[in-house]
């Protein structure tokens, strides 16, 4: 044992590391295949201490488990914005179905049922005849609301079963936990009677008394489920309502995502296929928490398109898609290019997507530094996360500023004319354009990036031979 500067004891296991010399690059393509997102290769077992006991989790098994994505774009997503029109929702649902692919990786999407528009949307989405995502409902914990579910002929609905004392006592005004539990169980009974599978949303779970309320309640739900046919048995949605969940091994309940899933899955006996994680992004942990839920035994992660949801939003659906492919090592029939189509459509109807937003922001794979542009020019894999042209229809780009240099300008010209391989123009040939760019900043004190339109005009004037030759190929 040795002590660091702060005097903390640390075990030291010195090991000699020898250089493995190479004359050919090892690009680690088993993990970074480029035509797929970088793969998440897991080795186990992983040990988490629960109640003082070491519990093993086999992360490697997730590759073969039937993990899935569910969607709440039209419910939680819509709570964060003015309502979508019926036409907009039907179009988004249609695109989501294409994205999901024949295996139904996006398995379910939930809908409000309260207004005429809600019901018309549901009818029109179902009329499209897609197998996936399956349409499910969302209602309050009121018995009378099952009439809506039955009328809509839905097989499953989410119901609010808030479980922290903040909600039980301060929001719902119950006088005791027992009164609350009994009330929830009455609603679940009503669902069974209506022939509808209840999905109990354990709201504010990451701030709840797990041993004192959550586990006894879920035990009761499992007991009730054993009395009904399998297709009606209760599903559990673990709602991290305020984004308090943490993924770190060793974190304590109620904030520990691994321990919450362990308790529900192995102690209460809720099968993985009936567990769903629903997160919020208040502490920037939303996507990792969802991925963690998959690894520890929860089959569903609940998402919204582009993470748009109440306050800071939910796990982004498109990120879950790439996580899914990275875990499975295969696209599994998912048409990832639809993600770009969805983003374009969302922008067209007024949903703001920041330029630097992963996978779909206008600049997500745009580099500004000249030295990075030089790397892109030599081999786009150097500064591109994966084959973004193939998977998203978005080749890597450079933005033209004072930092672009001749390399950045050259990359822009080649991308603009879609030139590949030996057709690509070298930077010697674009020196006049590179000079024009530099002068904008050095001579004319410009402070903004140069737009594609301005660059296009300069290519026409300063590189007329290439303009004439390749004009028809411009993007």
């Amino acid at each position, binding site marked *: 044992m040795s002590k660091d500067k702060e005097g903390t004891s640390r075990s030291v296991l010195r090991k000699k590391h020898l250089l493995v010399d190479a004359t050919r690059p090892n690009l680690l393509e088993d993990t970074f295949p480029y035509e797929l997102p970088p793969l998440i290769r897991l080795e186990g077992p992983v040990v988490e201490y629960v109640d003082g006991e070491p519990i093993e989790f086999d992360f490697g098994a997730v590759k073969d488990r039937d993990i899935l994505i569910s969607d709440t774009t039209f419910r939680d997503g819509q709570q964060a914005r003015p309502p979508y029109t019926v036409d907009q929702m039907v179009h988004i649902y249609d695109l989501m179905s294409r994205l999901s692919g024949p295996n139904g990786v996006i398995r379910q999407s939930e809908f409000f049922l309260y207004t005429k528009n809600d019901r018309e949307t549901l009818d029109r989405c179902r009329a499209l005849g897609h197998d996936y995502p399956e349409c499910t409902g969302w209602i309050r914990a009121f018995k009378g609301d099952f009439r809506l579910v039955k009328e809509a002929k839905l097989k499953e609905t989410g119901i609010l079963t808030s479980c922290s004392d903040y909600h039980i006592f301060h929001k719902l005004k119950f006088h005791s936990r027992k009164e609350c539990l009994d009330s929830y169980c009455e609603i679940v009974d009503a669902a069974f009677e209506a022939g509808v599978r209840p999905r109990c949303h354990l709201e504010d779970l990451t701030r709840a008394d797990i041993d004192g309320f959550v586990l006894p309640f879920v035990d009761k739900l499992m007991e009730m489920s054993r009395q009904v046919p399998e297709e009606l048995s209760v599903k559990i949605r673990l709602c991290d309502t305020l984004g308090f969940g943490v993924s770190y091994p060793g974190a304590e309940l109620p904030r520990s995502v691994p321990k919450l899933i362990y308790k529900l899955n192995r102690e209460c006996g809720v099968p993985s296929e009936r567990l769903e994680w629903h997160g919020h992004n208040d502490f920037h942990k939303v996507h990792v928490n969802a991925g963690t839920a998959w690894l520890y035994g929860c089959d569903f992660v609940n998402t919204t398109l582009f993470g748009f949801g109440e306050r800071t939003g939910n796990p982004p659906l498109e990120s879950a898609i790439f996580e899914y492919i990275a875990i499975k090592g295969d696209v599994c029939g998912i048409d990832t290019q639809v993600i770009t189509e969805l983003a374009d459509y969302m922008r067209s109807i007024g949903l703001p997507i920041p330029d630097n937003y992963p996978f779909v922001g206008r600049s997500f794979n745009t580099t500004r530094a000249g030295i990075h542009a030089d790397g892109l020019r030599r081999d786009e894999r150097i500064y591109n996360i994966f084959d973004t042209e193939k998977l998203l229809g978005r080749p890597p780009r450079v933005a033209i500023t004072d930092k672009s*240099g001749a390399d950045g300008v050259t990359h822009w010209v080649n991308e603009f004319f879609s030139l590949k391989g030996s057709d690509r123009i070298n930077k*010697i040939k674009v*020196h006049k354009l590179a000079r024009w760019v530099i002068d904008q900043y050095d001579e004319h004190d410009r402070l903004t990036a140069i737009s594609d339109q301005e660059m296009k005009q300069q290519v026409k004037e300063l590189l007329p031979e290439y303009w004439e030759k390749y004009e028809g190929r411009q993007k």
Partner: protein
Amino acid sequence: MATVEERVKAVTARVLGLSQEQIKSDHSFTVDLGAESVQSVELVAMFEEEFEIEMDEDSALAVETVGKAVEYITNACMEQGVGVEQ
């Protein structure tokens, strides 16, 4: 007819805004003559234009000094059948 060295120095002076007398054969384009990144590209482009030759981008940009440039261009002219005064 001017020699390759005289022509290289003339182009260098024009691109970098210097007088020819300031330029010596052992001068580095970047360290001694202050060529910035884009100016290095402009120098190669101007040498191509002056001598009516094509140069490989990476190897031409790797040339560090005026004297080495003279050698490089002389060889390129010979390979491409362009007559020059040595």
